[in-house]
């Protein structure tokens, strides 16, 4: 692994953020399985190094747009468990007062412009956010998260064209987890994904999305260059989704094997890999890391308990926020 950060505190923060995402998802999955959560949700587990590696390279004022598989981005950009679980359960204290739900969490206080339930739906928004930064002379950078499946949407090519023409400070982060819903990426993506960005004159990179330091190091460089007006950029992050397309996608052997899942979980897990590196480098002991995990588990349990007991929004809110008053 490469050295993106040299500060122990920052390494441990990255570790902790990855564990927070995994823990959040484990709890969300349990809420679904125990029928305590309305609707369903899409797990980010397995892809933690992507969100954390990227968001740790951003400032609070930088923006991100997220996807239906967005809990990881939300946590990585600084969101709290309590408001997130409240939102997943449709409670008044959720980030969106329960009106958004899992697929629409937005946390503008940390620069998260929102998850999006339309595949590719936020590509225009991210590009517009970068347009604002350029027009108003701010040095904000926007990261547009999307999956390999979204590369089939035409709007990606429309906005990359404009972003390249106008040198907008946006980084298109394609999380290639190998599956477009229930279909292998190879069956939906012709040719090379990065070559599509390169066709617009956009510098494109491929990185191991299970290596948080590699992701972070690359992103740090691209963010700095974006702030200097050298954007846009494109990153394809090779990663893997541990769960099905959504929490209800349990029997999935018809499109991917258990052996394949096992291989990624045991050999390429981003948290395990980073933990091994941290202990090998003497940055933290196994006991230190276990303590971090235990503290996060307790935080999550408390947040879940709080959210389950929290109240729903008053029904008078149903027609509030249709329009800005």
């Amino acid at each position: 692994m490469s050295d993106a950060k040299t500060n122990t505190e920052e390494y441990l923060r990255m570790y902790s953020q990855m564990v927070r995402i995994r823990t959040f998802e484990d709890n969300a999955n349990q809420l679904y399985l125990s029928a305590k959560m309305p609707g369903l949700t899409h797990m980010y587990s397995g892809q933690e190094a992507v969100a954390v590696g990227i968001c740790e390279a951003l400032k609070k004022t930088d923006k991100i747009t997220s996807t239906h598989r967005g809990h990881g981005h939300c946590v990585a950009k600084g969101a709290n468990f309590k408001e997130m679980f409240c939102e997943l359960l449709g409670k008044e204290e959720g980030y969106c007062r329960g009106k958004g739900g899992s697929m629409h969490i937005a946390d503008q206080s940390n620069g998260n412009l929102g998850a999006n339930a339309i595949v590719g739906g936020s590509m225009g928004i991210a590009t517009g956010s970068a347009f604002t930064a350029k027009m108003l002379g701010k040095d904000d950078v926007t990261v547009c998260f999307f999956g390999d499946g979204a590369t089939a949407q035409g709007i990606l090519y429309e906005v990359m064209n404009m972003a390249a023409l106008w040198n907008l400070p946006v980084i298109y982060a394609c999380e290639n987890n190998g599956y477009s819903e229930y279909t292998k990426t190879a069956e939906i993506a012709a040719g090379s994904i990065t070559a599509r960005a390169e066709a617009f004159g956009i510098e494109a990179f491929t990185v191991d999305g299970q290596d948080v330091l590699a992701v972070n190091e690359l992103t740090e460089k691209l963010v700095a260059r974006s702030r200097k007006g050298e954007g846009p950029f494109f990153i394809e992050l090779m990663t893997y989704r541990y769960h099905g397309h959504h929490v209800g996608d349990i029997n999935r052997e018809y499109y991917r094997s258990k052996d394949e899942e096992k291989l990624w979980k045991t050999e390429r897990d981003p948290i395990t890999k980073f933990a091994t590196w941290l202990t090998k480098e003497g940055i933290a002991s196994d006991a230190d890391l276990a303590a971090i995990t235990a503290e996060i588990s307790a935080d999550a349990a408390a947040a879940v308990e709080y959210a389950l007991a929290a109240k729903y929004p008053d029904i008078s809110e149903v027609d509030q926020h249709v329009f800005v008053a």
Partner: protein
Amino acid sequence: MREITLSQAVNEALAEEMRRDPTTFIIGEDVAEAGTPFKILSGLVEEFGTGRVVDTPIGEPGFMGLAVGAAMTGTRPIVDLMFGDFIFLIMDQLCNQAAKTHYMSGGKLTAPLVLRTNLGATRRSGAQHSQSLHALVAHIPGLKVAMPSSAYEAKGLLKTAIRDNNPVVIFEDKLMYQDKAEVPEEEYLIPFGVANVKRAGSDITLVGTSSMVQVAEKAAEILAAEGISAEVIDPRTIVPLDMDTINESVRKTSRCIVIDEGHQSFGVTSEIAARIMEQSFYHLDGPVIRMGAMDVPIPFSPALEDITVPTPEGVAANARKLMAGEMFNG
């Protein structure tokens, strides 16, 4: 008072608001040096530069999506959609993104943008450049919809739209761009949701939108010559819709025809007629009559196209039947 064209009125409104608010910008196809095919924006790029009058590639979903994101992060985009028919191309960005941003975020995010586009048939432009699609967006909660009926309304409503903190869609009638009306030199705004009684009358109410206000006014003149007194109401915005003014008029006249250039079925005329019947039923002496565009794709041939839209003569004929107590079969 001076008279200017609707096109000049739009241009003035844009220039005034762009001078007032440096976060506003225009974005769309051929909006800069070309000033759009209708030459509405001529002169703006010279004053505001290409940084604020932004020519885009021909990719409507892309620049509409970009505008939504720009609006969410502190600017006020004014999107130019060359033809109203292209609204089908941007539906996801307008209806799934912009319209829902404020609600889905529990009130935390806003998307204060204006989408300027047009409507109107009889320009011999064929089925994909002649539609009046405002009912489609009026159906979606979270979007405001303005329908100026003259240069005066075009200027006042556009200025209000640009200052509104919600996404607003303005439909200008492309056949009216060269029509002149009295427009004051001094600044004014027209509030949304306030209908205008264009002509007072006592026998029948004619509610018209956009250029159908003119159709209603001409019908009222025909009827006046026959001793029928028609009141003409221009709602000016269909979202929000000023039902108070419409109900007040209908309760006085007891008869009403609603005229709009969108397709008649499932459209604006149906909505307004239904509300009148729910809210003023016992004041009515006959059914509220809807007059929209025929439920056909707009044909190219002048012989066919002209009969697809409501005319003053058609409105007057229906008014006579209503006055005579004849029943209608739709």
